Every structure is written in structure tokens, then in C-alpha cells.
């Protein structure tokens, strides 16, 4: 009897439609992600490239590609470049975004036209990175408008694109400009998800703005912060289009703006799938490890805020 009842309930289940609707996603996923992923790993064990029009390989070389990337190449240097540029861009990005998010959501300030400002700061993200890089390349060239302006104001012209700091600084600046709007919106969603009675309670208890921020806002938006940090870090590791265009693929002076993905791209000139595959696998592992460590470090210590983070409903108070 009991069994029968359960069967009946099952027979009107709509679960199969769920699976059917998921099929396109999984088909696309297998086709465009999973198969390439497996074949990348597979090819990383082979010597396989084009010498002119001649195909060399594929010859099985076991871990030879990994060895030459880890021990014979300048990968550590490119990893350092990538992280350096990412941090250079991320610090102003998170600071400014936090500041803006707090201002925009502050009941005390009650800013007007926040919709307008939100749109404006998000704008740079809508421009194609390549176009943005081309624009900067033209603006900061040796005889570009910025240098003309410097000379006009009585400064020495600065050859941005021939200097290590100039190049790295410009890339970081572009990354910052493109992403701080996005981060601001995310942080705002986080802050607005906090119950306003907590802020009121803090106010009644006589907490200063700084204390409110440090003891109320920050712990409450930790999950969002982790998310921002993680996505930005992964984006940073994958940094490619901006430096590629700005330095014409050469990585600036002395290859100091060569990021890891640009290094990967270099191997595709000779269709060197073996080396490129090995490098991709290494990057994959590094990204995975970094993500796990950060996620664990930042989320598991404080069960209370994690719990609240999950309950948080972003944008509830948004007009």
C-alpha cells in the first residue's frame, strides 16, 4: 500500500523534464569544454608541433614537456609578472569599490542619482578589452596626447611603453578601470543584503562609521568578498588580452609584462600543442589550488557569518 502510494507520486513527477532540459547544456559542455579538456591533458604528454609545413610528432615523451616548462622556461618570471600586475590593479579596485559601495548604500549620506553613477562606473567594462588596450596604446605612445600634455605642463616626456613600470602600470590601470564598477555593484548587493536593523542597533549603541564598517559591514559581506577575490584572482591568472594588445604580444621591455597566458599563446605560433597543453594543465592545477585555499581560509573559520551569508538576499532593498 505504502509502496503503491509512493509509486503514484513518482509517476506524476516532472523530474524527467528537468533532465531533458539539462541535456543541451551537458551536450554543449561535453563538446566544448570536457573533450578539449581531456585532449589538452592527453596532448601534453606528446611532442607535437609544426616546423614550417612539416608536422613533428606526435611522439610520446611522457613528462618531458612538464620538465622543460617547470625547470627550463621562465614560467616563474611570468607568474611573478602576472601576480604583480594583478595585485597592482586589485588593491585600488577593492578599495575604491568598497568606498563607493558604502557611499552608495549609506542611509546617512542618502546620495542622489546613484543609478546614474552605477551606470557610469560600469561602462568601461562594456568596452572590448582589445579596443580599450588599443586606445591606451594610442593615448600613451611616445608622441601621444598624454605625452603632449606632459610636455605642455612642463614635464619631461615619459616613454610609457618602453619602461617596465609604465607598461605594468598601464595594464594594472586598465584592469582596475574595467573591473571596479563590476566589483562595486557586487559589494553593494552584499551590503544591501544586511538587515538594516543591525546598522540601527550599531547607531544606537554609538558606533562610529569606522566601527560600523569594521564590525558590522565587513564581517557580514565576507562571502561576497571571497567571491570577488576569487573571481578576480582567476581573472588575474588568465590575464591576456590587455597586455597582449598593449605590448603587441611581446610582453613589454625584457618580457616583464608577459603574463602566463601570453606565454601559452607564444607556443601556438608553431602549433606546439604539447608544450601549450602542459602549460595549460599546470595553470589549471595552480588555479584550482589557489581557489581552494582561499575559499577554505576565508569561509570556514567563521561559521556564523558564513551561515548568514547563505541566507543573504542580495538586492532586496534595491529600488
Amino acid at each position, binding site marked *: 500500500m505504502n509502496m503503491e502510494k509512493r509509486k503514484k507520486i513518482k509517476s506524476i513527477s516532472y523530474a524527467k523534464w528537468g533532465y531533458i532540459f539539462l541535456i543541451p547544456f551537458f551536450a554543449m559542455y561535453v563538446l566544448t569544454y570536457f573533450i578539449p579538456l581531456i585532449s589538452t591533458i592527453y596532448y601534453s604528454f606528446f611532442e607535437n*608541433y*609544426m*616546423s*614550417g*609545413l*612539416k608536422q*613533428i610528432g606526435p611522439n610520446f615523451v611522457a613528462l618531458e614537456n612538464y620538465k622543460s616548462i617547470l625547470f627550463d622556461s*621562465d614560467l616563474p618570471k611570468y607568474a611573478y609578472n602576472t601576480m604583480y600586475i594583478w595585485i597592482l590593479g586589485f588593491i585600488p579596485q577593492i578599495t575604491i569599490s568598497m568606498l563607493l559601495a558604502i557611499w552608495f548604500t549609506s542611509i546617512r549620506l542618502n546620495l542622489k542619482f546613484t543609478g546614474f553613477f552605477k551606470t557610469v562606473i560600469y561602462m568601461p567594462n562594456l568596452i572590448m578589452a582589445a579596443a580599450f588596450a588599443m586606445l591606451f596604446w594610442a593615448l600613451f*605612445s*611616445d*608622441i*601621444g596626447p598624454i605625452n603632449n600634455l606632459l610636455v605642455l605642463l612642463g614635464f619631461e616626456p615619459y*616613454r610609457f611603453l*618602453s*619602461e*617596465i613600470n609604465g607598461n605594468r602600470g598601464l595594464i594594472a590601470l586598465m584592469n582596475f578601470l574595467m573591473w571596479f564598477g563590476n566589483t562595486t555593484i557586487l559589494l553593494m548587493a552584499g551590503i544591501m543584503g544586511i538587515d538594516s536593523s543591525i546598522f540601527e542597533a550599531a547607531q544606537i549603541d554609538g558606533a562610529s562609521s569606522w566601527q560600523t564598517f569594521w564590525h558590522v559591514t565587513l564581517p557580514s559581506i565576507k562571502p561576497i568578498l571571497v567571491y570577488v577575490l576569487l573571481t578576480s584572482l582567476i581573472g588575474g591568472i588568465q590575464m591576456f588580452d590587455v597586455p597582449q594588445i598593449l605590448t603587441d*604580444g*611581446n610582453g613589454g*621591455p*625584457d*618580457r616583464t609584462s608577459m603574463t602566463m597566458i601570453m606565454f601559452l599563446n*607564444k*607556443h601556438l*605560433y*608553431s602549433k*606546439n600543442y604539447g*608544450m601549450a597543453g602542459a602549460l595549460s594543465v599546470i595553470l589549471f592545477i595552480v588555479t584550482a589550488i589557489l581557489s581552494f585555499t582561499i575559499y577554505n581560509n576565508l569561509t570556514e573559520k567563521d561559521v556564523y557569518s558564513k551561515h548568514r551569508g547563505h541566507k543573504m538576499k542580495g538586492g532586496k532593498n534595491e529600488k
Partner: protein
Amino acid sequence: MKKFKRFVAITLIFVMTLSLIACSSPTTEEPKQPEEPAEETPAPEVDEAEGKEGKVLNIWGWNDEFQGLFNNYFAGKGLVPEGVEVKFTIVPNRDNAYQNALDEALLNQENAPDDEKIDLFLVEADYALKYVDTDYTLDIIKDVGLTPDDISGQYKYTQEIVTDSKGAIKGTSWQATPGLFAYRRSIAKDVLGTDDPDAVQEALSTWEKFNEVAEKAHAKGYKMLSGFDDSYRTFSNNVSAPWVDENNTIIIDDNIVKWIEQTKEFTDKGYNNKTSLWDDQWAADQGPAGKVFGFFYSTWGINFTLLGNALETPLPEGVSATGDPEAYRAATEGNGIFGDYAVCYGPQNYYWGGSWLCAAAGSDNIELVREIMRVMTCDKETLTTITKDTQDFTNNIEAMEALAADDTFASAFLGGQNHIKLFVGSAKGIDMSNISPYDQGMNEGIQTAFRDYFNGTVDYDTALNNFYTAVIEKYPELKRPE
């Protein structure tokens, strides 16, 4: 609302599928329909072959230069047999895109349907051997059927560049691109007291003298050269061995080292303007505001690039010296520094650039390919006409020598100098037997790597190390010297 949602969903799916399809299709440019000639007089050889020849002639290139010439001097004369469609596929050079596309098409040549097989494609000197030294190109004498007599009028070096390791000639060009030193008359007068090409040549005939003039120019507030790479080709074309030896080891020739030393000296002493080829400062240096003594430039560079850069206001669309001489004179006279340049040989013979025609193995239009090669690259009359029309230097010794001796032939841009005369002199001395399939990567690589050294960012050894790293990334089979 439901309907609207469904409509949006369907539209999105449609757009996404479309973009997927669009991404996978190759960029084939429909050819400009060659103007139908009034009277059809196809060459007799082509007539005979009709029937077994393919109906579509596929030509691949990276710009429309050859397409223009082909339309004017081959198709325009009615030499394309009736019923044959000529299809140009143009893939721009940037980021190696042309070679990538060409490689893919050639590797797939055997499986492609006859009408999609490449029949003719263009290559540049720096990577010509990559294609020439394979079975994907045809011997223009044995396979294509040109006679040694046909190509006897061409400059020898243009054949050396496309000769494979077994000695077969695998390509042919309509142009020769000897290089000269183009200098500013006004600056030469100020620095040397004369702008007479012979006297200036005398003052620049060796590198020692060249350096002396650079010092004098510097003292007067001028730069001798614009950038780091300006003199590069004069050194790299006179190397004593190819870039790579038989053991796949990279060799840095003494002449390349000389270029590095000279450029470093010029940079440190302020004799150049720290530019790189093609950047905007480099172009500006060639214009009215420029303070640079001169530029190493070959045929196309002088008549197209330098001329364009020298003008204050660009030439109006469609105005050319042959099309409308009056409008041309009006547009150029007193415009920027038009007429202020002159040319001399400079310290060493060299060439720069040029395009070669290669016949692709598997072509089903051999007869037509031969005819195109014969008319466009061997026929004295056609080549003379091209030079007269475009001022470009073409690949026929006799024709060029005739124009060199012609006192009425002069370039207004060069202040009335007959540049062909100097090109003829320069072209004779070019020796390109030391070309290698890696030249493109090597030339680009060394210029990029040593830019940091010239700028003072890195020392010599670091720059050299960066050069090796960059080229071995491109050509994994190569090795550093021990």
C-alpha cells in the same frame, strides 16, 4: 508576455547558432569582377587547354596589391579564358594570420574539391623558403612549364630567394625591391653643404663615413636615422651564413652584431630618435616636422610609404601621377616636403620586401598559372608599363635599364631624380644565397629583443637571451649555440 518570451528565446538561439556558423566559415573575399574587355583575345595556349582546365582559379594573398595589378594587366587585357572564374582570397598578415590560413589550406589541398584547391599564392621573402622547400609548391620550369629563357630577364636575387635546397626555382616575382638611402635635400645641404646625390653618396659610401656624417648632423641638431631598425636590412642582407646551421643551431652573424653595436652607439649618442619601424613617431619623422637626415627604404617604401608620410595633407582619393597628372601636381606641389627627398646608394646593397608568386601543387589550372606567371613576371612590355604607371621597380633587367637610361623618366617626389637608375645599380649587387626559412621570426625577434638593450632597460646578454627564448618558442626545433 509568454509569446514575447518565446520570441526572444528563439531569436537568441538563432543568433547564437548563426554566430557559430559564421565563425567557422573562412573569409573568402569575392573578387572584384574583372572588367569585361571589349574584344576577347585569349592566348592560344590557353585555348588549347580548355576543357581539362579547372573552372575556378584560386589566388591567395595578404593584401590587394597583386589583385590590382592582375585586374589591370592580365584580366583587363582579356587574358582570362572564358568561363574561368578568378577568386582572390585575402587574409591580412597581422599576427601571422595569413600564413596560418595558408598552411591550413595547403595541408588540406589533397582533400579539397578541385574548384577550392589553391592554384596560386603569394609569399614574402622572409618566409618564402618555408613554402618553397616543400612539395606544396611547384617547380616553375619543370612543373609549371616556364622556359629558362622566359625568366632569364629577371634579377638573379629574386630567383635565389625562391630556390629550394635541390636547386629548383619554385616562385617568380614581378618586382625587385632593391633598397636605397633616401635623404632630405635640405638637411644634406645644411650638414654637408650639398644635396647632389653623387656627392652625398660619396659622403655615405662606407659605414665609417656614415657615422661621421651622423656626428655632424647631430652637432647641427638633426638625427641621422629615426629608429633602431632603420639600418637593420642593410646588415642582415649581407650576412655570411644563414640564421640557422645544419644542426638547427642559431647563428648570430658578425654583421648582425655590427648592427647592434652601431645602433647602440647611435642611440647612446642621440643620433637617432629611438623609434621602431611603423610606429607613429617613425612616420612623423618622415614628414614636414621631421628632423631626420634619411631613411633606408626600398622601392615600394620610397614611392608609397615615404611619399605618403612626407605630405602635409594626404593625397585626395584616386589622384595618381598617371591617372590625372594635373590634379596630382596640384595636390603635391608645396605639400609638406614633397620634392625634398633624394636617393643615394648608401653604404651597402640590400633589398627589403617584395612578393613572389608560387604555384600550388595540386592546382588544376596549370596552363593559366603559367600564363599569369609569364605575363606578369617575365613579359618585358607588361613590366615596363607597370613601372611607368606606378613608379614601382619591376623584375626585368632590360626594361629597367632602358628606363634608367631614359632622361625623361624622373620622379617629381625625389626632386626630378631618376630613381630607377639607382635601383638598377643597387639591384645588381644583392646576394640572397644566405636566406633561411626562419628569417621572418629571426628578424622580428632580434629587433624586438634588442629594443630593450638600445633603450637601456637590459644589458646585452639579457637581450640576447630574450631573443633566443622568443625564437625557440616560435621554432621549437632550434637550439641555442653552445
